[in-house]
Each structure stands twice: as structure tokens, then as C-alpha cells.
């Protein structure tokens, strides 16, 4: 059978990159979800999300590896601590800034990133911590999944199990958040608060409690992302926040207020990244491509694909 080729590369590789891109993109979507939840409720863009992820993952590591608790208990405990952390962050750092200009909240979340970095360095040090959730009894990583496509694509497609898990976690998170925002009383009041703070307050919604809740939800999403990321590549205090930075283009591409936008944006960035990595080079894919997409979005359509249009008046 003749080798199938797409733009100078074997077809099965291109298909593999596409699938890997979707799976990697699901990771970005998961990060983007956390960012969107906070932005929707309180119009704050959380630059410290990557560090929140890292802290969530490291908490799980501390309970699972250090204390030797069962996995599900460790994950739940990490979520619980993350919720407290999220509420604390909102109460102490962002509540006093309500009504301040955008720059102040940007700087506050950047300062928060530095604070979390300092805490991580102080408690866990600068070395990466592997989180072997997907390991078998002997502590070896699970073998990658192999799709028998050699017959019609010219080669087998190999997928990492941890990426499949991130896809599942993202799908669950997306489903849960969609249902939450559509069918629960709290979710609906959060959407109302996102629409207009003053209006929401005037019909009796507890806007401040809603901000706190948004941070708590975002902290859980971040911790989940951190655990999945840690299971895949280990919890590196440099690599994890850098990975979260690559999810920022995903949020802007999808639209800052849109949860489906976060999913679409994340998957798109993932595919663009792996395709560029495959066709050009890994550094171009990881360090350049997401940010070129970001520049294009900002120049062509700053509100993103599903974001709200803003009209300005003097």
C-alpha cells in the first residue's frame, strides 16, 4: 500500500497529531473553564490560575504520597482545601477591590501568583513532584493506548492514557458546569450577577457571596486540572504555570464569558499547538503558536468567538 502523505508528512502522523491536539486541548479547556467561571461572575481575569492549579495538584500529592491516604480521599481533601483557599483569596484580596479599575485587579491576581509561587517554593521546593495516579501496582506508568489503524492510515496511532483522562475530566467539568448554570438556583443567580452587578443586587441577589462561590468553583476546577496535569507530566513549579499561560489564548479565542467558548477555544489551541509542533518544531508549537493565535484574535475579533460585544459610551 502506498504511503499516504499530508503536506509532506505521513497521514497517520497528521491524524495522530490531530487527536493528540484535541486531547491536549481538553487540558487547556479545563484551565480555561476555571478562568471563565471567575470572569463571568466578577469580571476579574485570574492571572494566578496556573499557580492555583499547581497548589491543588501539590495538595493532592501531599495527601496521597506523603500521608498515604487513599486516592479518592486525597482528591476530595485537595478539593476541600482548594475551596477554602478560593474563598480566602476572594475575601482577602479581591473583595476590597470591587469598583477599582481593571489594572488594579490585574495587578492583584499577578501579585497572588507571586504569593502562591512563594508558598509553593517554601513548602514543596523547586523540584517537580510526580503524581503517579495512573500507575499500575508496580509503580510503572500505564502503557499508551494503541489504535490499530495501520491498515488504512499507514501506521498505528498512539495516545497517552493520561490525556484521555484529562479529556474525560474536562467533559465531566463542562457537563457539570453547564447543568449547574442552567438548572440550579445558585447557578442562575450567578449568571444574573455576571450580567449586571448593580441590577443583580437591586433584585436581592447576594452578589458578594456569588463572587466567593465563583472563586470556590474555579479553585476546584483548578485543582482538578492540577491533579490531571500532575498525573501526566508531574507537578513542575515552572512547567505547570507556563502551561496555564498557554490557556489564556484559548479563553480569549472562545470569548471571556462563554463556557462553550472555553471548550472550543481550548481544543482549537491544542490542535494548533500539536500541528505546529509536528509540522515545524516543538518550540514553535508550544511557545509561539498559541500567542500568534492570541494576537490574531485580539486584532481581528477581540471579543472572541462567543463573547459578549461591548459598546462604549462617554
Amino acid at each position: 500500500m502506498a504511503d499516504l502523505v499530508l503536506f509532506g508528512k505521513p497521514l497517520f502522523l497528521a491524524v495522530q497529531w490531530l487527536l493528540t491536539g484535541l486531547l491536549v486541548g481538553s487540558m487547556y479547556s479545563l484551565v480555561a473553564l476555571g478562568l471563565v467561571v471567575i470572569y463571568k461572575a466578577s469580571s476579574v481575569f485570574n492571572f494566578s490560575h496556573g499557580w492555583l492549579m499547581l497548589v491543588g495538584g501539590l495538595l493532592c500529592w501531599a495527601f496521597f504520597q506523603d500521608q498515604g491516604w487513599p486516592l479518592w480521599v486525597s482528591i476530595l481533601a485537595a478539593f476541600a482545601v482548594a475551596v477554602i483557599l478560593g474563598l480566602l483569596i476572594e475575601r482577602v484580596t479581591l473583595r476590597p477591590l470591587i469598583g477599582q479599575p481593571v489594572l488594579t485587579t490585574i495587578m492583584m491576581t499577578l501579585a497572588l501568583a507571586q504569593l502562591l509561587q512563594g508558598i509553593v517554593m517554601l513548602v514543596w521546593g523547586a523540584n517537580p513532584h510526580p503524581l503517579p495516579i495512573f500507575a499500575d501496582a508496580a509503580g510503572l506508568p500505564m502503557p499508551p493506548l494503541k489504535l490499530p489503524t495501520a491498515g488504512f492510515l499507514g501506521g498505528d496511532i498512539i495516545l497517552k492514557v493520561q490525556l484521555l483522562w484529562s479529556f474525560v475530566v474536562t467533559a465531566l467539568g463542562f457537563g457539570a458546569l453547564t447543568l449547574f448554570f442552567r438548572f440550579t438556583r445558585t447557578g442562575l443567580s450567578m449568571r444574573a450577577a455576571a450580567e449586571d452587578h448593580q441590577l443583580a443586587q437591586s433584585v436581592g441577589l447576594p452578589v458578594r457571596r456569588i463572587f466567593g462561590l465563583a472563586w470556590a468553583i474555579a479553585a476546584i476546577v483548578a485543582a482538578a486540572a492540577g491533579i490531571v496535569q500532575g498525573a501526566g507530566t508531574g507537578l513542575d513549579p515552572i512547567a505547570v504555570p507556563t502551561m496555564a499561560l498557554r490557556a489564556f489564548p484559548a479563553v480569549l479565542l472562545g470569548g471571556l464569558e462563554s463556557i462553550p467558548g472555553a471548550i472550543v477555544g481550548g481544543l482549537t489551541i491544542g490542535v494548533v499547538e500539536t500541528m505546529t509542533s509536528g509540522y515545524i518544531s516543538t518550540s514553535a508549537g508550544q511557545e509561539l503558536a498559541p500567542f500568534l493565535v492570541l494576537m490574531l484574535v485580539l486584532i481581528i475579533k477581540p471579543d472572541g468567538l462567543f463573547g459578549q460585544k461591548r459598546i462604549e459610551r462617554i
Partner: protein
Amino acid sequence: MAVIRPSGIYDVNYEQDMALVRTPALKVAAAICAVIFFALPLFSRDSPLGLEIVPLPLLGTLNRIGITLISVQGLNILLGYTGQVSLGQAAFMAVGAYTSTILTTHVGIPFWFALPMAALTAGVVGLIFGLPSLRIKGFYLAMATLAAQFIIPWLLKNPLAQWTGGASGMEVPLPTLGRWVFNTDQSMFYVIMIPVAVMMLAAKNITRTRLGRALIAVRDNDLAAEVLGINLFTYKLRAFFLCAVFAGVAGSLSAHYTRSISPDGFDLLDSVWQLGMLIVGGAGYAVGPIFGTALIRLLREFATFITPAMRELLPGTLPFVDVASVDRALGPLFFAVVLMLFLVFEPRGLAYRWEILKAAWRLRPFAH
């Protein structure tokens, strides 16, 4: 806040009203301060006078403060006066550093000419990344400059690796003038502090001209400024250009001071720290960057200074602490806490407090 002038001192013409140093007493004081400041290296170790009053580490600290100060002052023009956020200042510094290094090593141009060329190159790159400011502002502009912070180091590492030495960086030659080689903290003090003085004066004067007033109008309400006849796009671009020029000068000086550069030496955290210095010092005040840069830099030196003591102390009090990385934790922790306190309690920064203090001094013994 209205400018409160000392009582009994009157201006009789426009020149007096616009003067930076307004009274004869102040002129003398300023001159004495300048002379003492520029004579500091003469009283350090190995100096021709043979005195050892000023410790060398102090000069090193002052040099580092000076370099950062130029860059933060550039950021002040962009953020404090024009109201445009930039997270890419360190990347523009990288452009200046690399331009200067490439010109001195590959082309053989002396440092003294490479410095202005580096400033111009950084300015042009700043213009390119300022282009989106036509359509977007606030948070979105911060994102566009964040992209600069990734795209520029990538360009330096990959397509330009032939000239820049890629990720491993390159060695930077020392500035020389005739038979003098500027290789000590004392001699570099002059190489750094003269541009610092020039750039500080330039920044102060820019904000007092038509350009500066237009920039302030853009900051206060951009739509209203446009209605007044200010061309938003060109003025925003000028602010970006100036901001990047300052960064370019700082980058070039920092390259020749530290003598080696790498693309990772100018990362997002540096940009964030410079923004923090500006906020702590007071954005929109010409003296703000001086306060902020000095405070944060000294805090960082303090963190390094107490690290050994903390290594002894911490394991006893907080048993879960990882002692090995205390030095990497304290700097960010101090910075974050100080920045947060300022954001919550005094978002206008130290310079605003300084203005209040000056007014109170002039009004004493009255309260208002």
C-alpha cells in the same frame, strides 16, 4: 491635588512658574545632592582617594536600581500617564540588550553608539506591539503585550539564533573609552547613572509638554480625548514607542553591566515585578518609579540577606518547610505581600503619600 507652593514665594514670569527647581535654596540643595551622589564611587574601595567609606555592594545595588529605574520610568509613561497596560516590558528590554550586544560584538560599533541604536530598535519593536492598542484597551491590551513577552524571546531563541546564540545566550563586551575599561561597579556607576539622570529628566519634561498633556487626557477618558481632537492612535503609539525606548536603554545597560545575556533572563516575572514597582511607587508621578524601584529592590536584597538566618530558624517553627528553596521563596513572598498591601490600602503609591507629606510640611502649623 492642587500644587501647594511655599508661602511667600511668588512667580513673576512664565519661566519661574515652569521651573523644575524653583528657589535658590532648592537649587543649592539639589546641586549639593547631585555632587555627593556622583562622588559616591570616589569614596569606595580601590578609588584614587584611598578612602573606604562607601561599601562596594552598595554601589552594586545602586547600579541595579538605576537600570531597573529607567525601565520602570518608561512603564510609567505608558501606564501612569497614558493608562495603557503592558506586560511586555522585559521583552522590550531583551530587544535593547540583544541589539546592543550584537552591534558591539558582531558589527564592532562602540557601546556609546550601540546604546542609542538599541533604544531606537526597542522603540520600533514597541511600536509593532502597540499597534493593537488602536482597537483594544485595558485587559485586552495586557493580553496583547503578554503575547510580546512570548513571541520576542522565541524569535531570539530560534530564527535569530545565528546572531543571538540561541537559548544559551551570549557574552557581552565591556564598554571602553580610549584606554579606560568600564569593568568595576565604580566605573559602571557613571555609565549607568548618567543615562538614568538624562532619562529621568526627559520623562519629567515629556509629561510637562503638549505630548504629556495629551497622554494624560487619553488616560483620563480616551473617548473624550478623541472628541477634543487628540488623535488617539498616534498618541498611544508614541507612548508605546517611548516606553520601549526606555526599556531599550535599560536593556542595553543591563547587558553591559551583567556581561552575559540569555533570552530567559527577560521573562514575564520581570515585567510583573516592574509593574509592581510602579504601582508601589505611584503610577502617574515622575518620582513614583524612584520610590517603587528602590523599595522593591532593597526588599529583594533584604530577602537574600535574611535567607541564611531563615534557614536556621524556619525548620524549628514551621516543620513542613523545604529549607533548600527558602531563597527562591522569600523574594516573591515579600514582593507579593507588599504589592497586595499597596493595592488595597494605597493604590496611588508612595509618591502620593510623599505629595501629602510635602503639602503638610508647607502648610504647618495649619491642618489645611
